[in-house]
C-alpha cells in the first residue's frame, strides 16, 4: 500500500489555478522530488497535503486513511512533518526547545501535573529532552542547544528546521527547498545527511528543490510541475532525457545532449 496517495487535487485562488488536477503516489522508504519554475504551485501542494489550505476537490490518503478534510494539527499527529521555504523557527525558544515542541502535543503529563511538579511531569520532560537531543545530535547541533535560533548561521538554521521536523517522528517528511542558500559543500553535506536518514529511519520524503545536483542525487522519482500541472514524471534519468524538451524550465543547468 502506498504511504501517501494524492488523487486529483485542485486549488484555485480567485482566478489563478495554483494546483491543477495533481496526483502523486509516495511509497514507503522513497524520496520523491517536485521541481518546476517558481509559481508552479509546488509549495501549494505541500500546503494542501499538510492541510494549511482546504482542497477545492480531490482526495489525499495517508496509509490508506483519508485525510482530505482533517485539520492541520491532526495531520501532523498522523505523521506528516514539514519544513518551510522561509525558515519558520520559533525565535522566542532556544534551539533545544524548538526541537522539543513537536513532542509537546503528546499528553505525557497534564496541565495540573505540570504546575504542581508531579512525578509524571519529570518523567515526561526527561523523555522529551532525550528525544529532542537525539534529533539535534543527528543534525550535529547538540552543542548549540541553548542558543537562540537567530544567532545561528543560515545553514545551521536550515538543519535545525529538519531536526525539528524529525522530532515529530514522522512517516512522511515534506522538505521545502532545504538546500536554498547553501554553498556547494553544504549542499553535498545535506545530500549525505538525507541519504543517511533514509537508511536509518523508516521514513519517506518529498523534496521541493531548485538545485538539480541535489534532486538528481537523492530522488527515486521526480514530478515536474508548471502552472499547477504535472508535465512529466519519472526517474531522474528519464527526467534528464526529457531535459531537452524542458530546457526552458530546467535552465542552463542541464546540457541538451540529444
Amino acid at each position, binding site marked *: 500500500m502506498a504511504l501517501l496517495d494524492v488523487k486529483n487535487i485542485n486549488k484555485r485562488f480567485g482566478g489563478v489555478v495554483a494546483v491543477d488536477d495533481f496526483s502523486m503516489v509516495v511509497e514507503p522508504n522513497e524520496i520523491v522530488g517536485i521541481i518546476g519554475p517558481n509559481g508552479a504551485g509546488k509549495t501549494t501542494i505541500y500546503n494542501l497535503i499538510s492541510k494549511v489550505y482546504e482542497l477545492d476537490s480531490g482526495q489525499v490518503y495517508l496509509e490508506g486513511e483519508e485525510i482530505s478534510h482533517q485539520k*492541520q494539527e491532526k495531520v501532523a499527529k498522523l505523521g506528516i512533518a514539514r519544513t518551510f521555504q522561509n525558515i519558520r523557527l520559533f525565535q522566542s525558544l532556544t534551539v533545544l526547545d524548538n526541537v522539543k515542541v513537536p513532542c509537546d502535543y503528546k499528553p505525557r503529563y497534564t496541565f495540573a501535573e505540570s504546575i504542581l511538579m508531579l512525578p509524571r511531569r519529570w518523567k515526561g520532560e526527561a523523555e522529551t529532552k532525550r528525544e529532542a537531543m537525539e534529533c539535534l545530535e543527528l543534525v550535529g547541533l547538540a552543542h548549540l542547544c541553548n542558543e537562540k535560533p537567530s544567532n545561528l548561521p543560515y545553514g545551521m538554521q536550515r538543519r535545525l528546521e529538519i531536526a525539528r521536523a524529525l522530532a515529530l517522528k514522522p512517516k512522511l517528511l515534506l522538505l521545502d527547498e532545504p538546500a536554498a542558500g547553501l554553498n556547494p559543500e553544504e549542499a553535498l553535506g545535506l545530500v549525505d545527511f538525507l541519504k543517511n536518514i533514509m537508511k536509518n529511519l523508516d521514513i519517506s520524503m518529498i523534496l521541493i528543490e531548485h538545485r538539480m545536483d541535489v534532486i538528481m542525487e537523492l530522488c527515486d522519482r521526480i514530478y515536474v510541475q508548471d502552472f499547477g500541472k504535472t508535465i512529466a514524471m519519472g526517474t531522474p534519468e528519464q527526467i534528464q532525457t526529457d531535459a531537452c524538451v524542458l530546457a526552458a524550465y530546467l535552465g542552463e543547468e542541464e546540457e541538451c545532449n540529444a
Partner: protein
Amino acid sequence: MNESVIVFTLITIIGVVSIFPLTGLTGLFSFGQAAYMAVGAYIAGILAVFYQMPLIVCGLAGVLGCGVLSMIVGYPTLKLRRDFFALMSLFLGEAIKAVLNASGNITGGAQGLSSIPKWVGLPGVIVGTIVVVALVAFMKYSRFGRMCLAIKTDELAAKSFGISVFATKMKVYVFTSMIAGFAGVLYAFYIQYIDPNMFGWTTSSSWVIFLFFGGTVSLTGSVLSAAILTMLPEMLRFASELRTVIYCVIIIAVLNFRPQGLLGDKEISDLFKWIKSKLAKPKKLPDKAA
C-alpha cells in the same frame, strides 16, 4: 512603609503574574483580566457576608467561579483574531462592571460590598504570592510554556507540529483567570470593601503595562516591574493621574527604545547561572605563541 502598600503591591504582582502566561507567553493581549479579579472578589465576598460561609468555601468558590466563567467566555472569544480578542476582553470588563452595578440587591451595586470579614493578613498574601509565582514559573518551563511561546511566535507553524492551538489557549485562559480570581479573593478579605470601579479596564491595562515594562517573556521582570511601579509612586505620593501619565510615558519609552522590556527574556535563574559560570572557571591567561 505601610502594610497596606505592601499588600497592594503583592496583589498587583499576583495580577501581573496572572496575565503573564496569557499575554507574555501566548501573546493574547487582554485588557479585561481585572474583571476576573472582580468576579473572584464578589463571589467570595457575597458568600462570606450574606451566607456566612467559611474562608475555604468562599475562596474556592471565588476561584472556581472564575474558572467556569472563563470557560464560557473563552470558548467564543478565543476563536477570534488577536485584536478582536483584546477588544472583547475590554468589553468583558465593562460588561461585568455593568452587571455588578445593576444587580444592586445582591452585590450592593455602585455602593459596593462592605463589612467583608478580615480573614487575610500580610502573611497570607505573602504566601499566596509565592505560591502563584511558583505555579506560573513551573508552567513556563513545562511543555505548556513551550507550546504557548510557539503559538505566540508562529501559530501556523505550531499547528503543523501537532499543537492544538485552541485547546492550549483555553487552558491558559482558564488558568490565568483563576489566578486573577484568587487575587480578588485575597483583596476582598484584606481590604473588607469592594466596588465595581476598582476592577475596570484601567487596572487591567496597568497590569499589561507592568508586564511589558519588565519584559514580556520574563517572569522575574514582571514581578520586579510590578513591584517597582506600584511601590515607587506610593512612596513618592503621586496623585493617581500623574502616576498614570508616568506609567504611559514609561511604556511609550520602552516601546520606542527597548521593546523587549527591562529584562528581555532573562530570568533570575539566568543570573544564578551567570554567577556560577564566573565562579567556576578562573580566568586563564592566553598562551603566547612561542
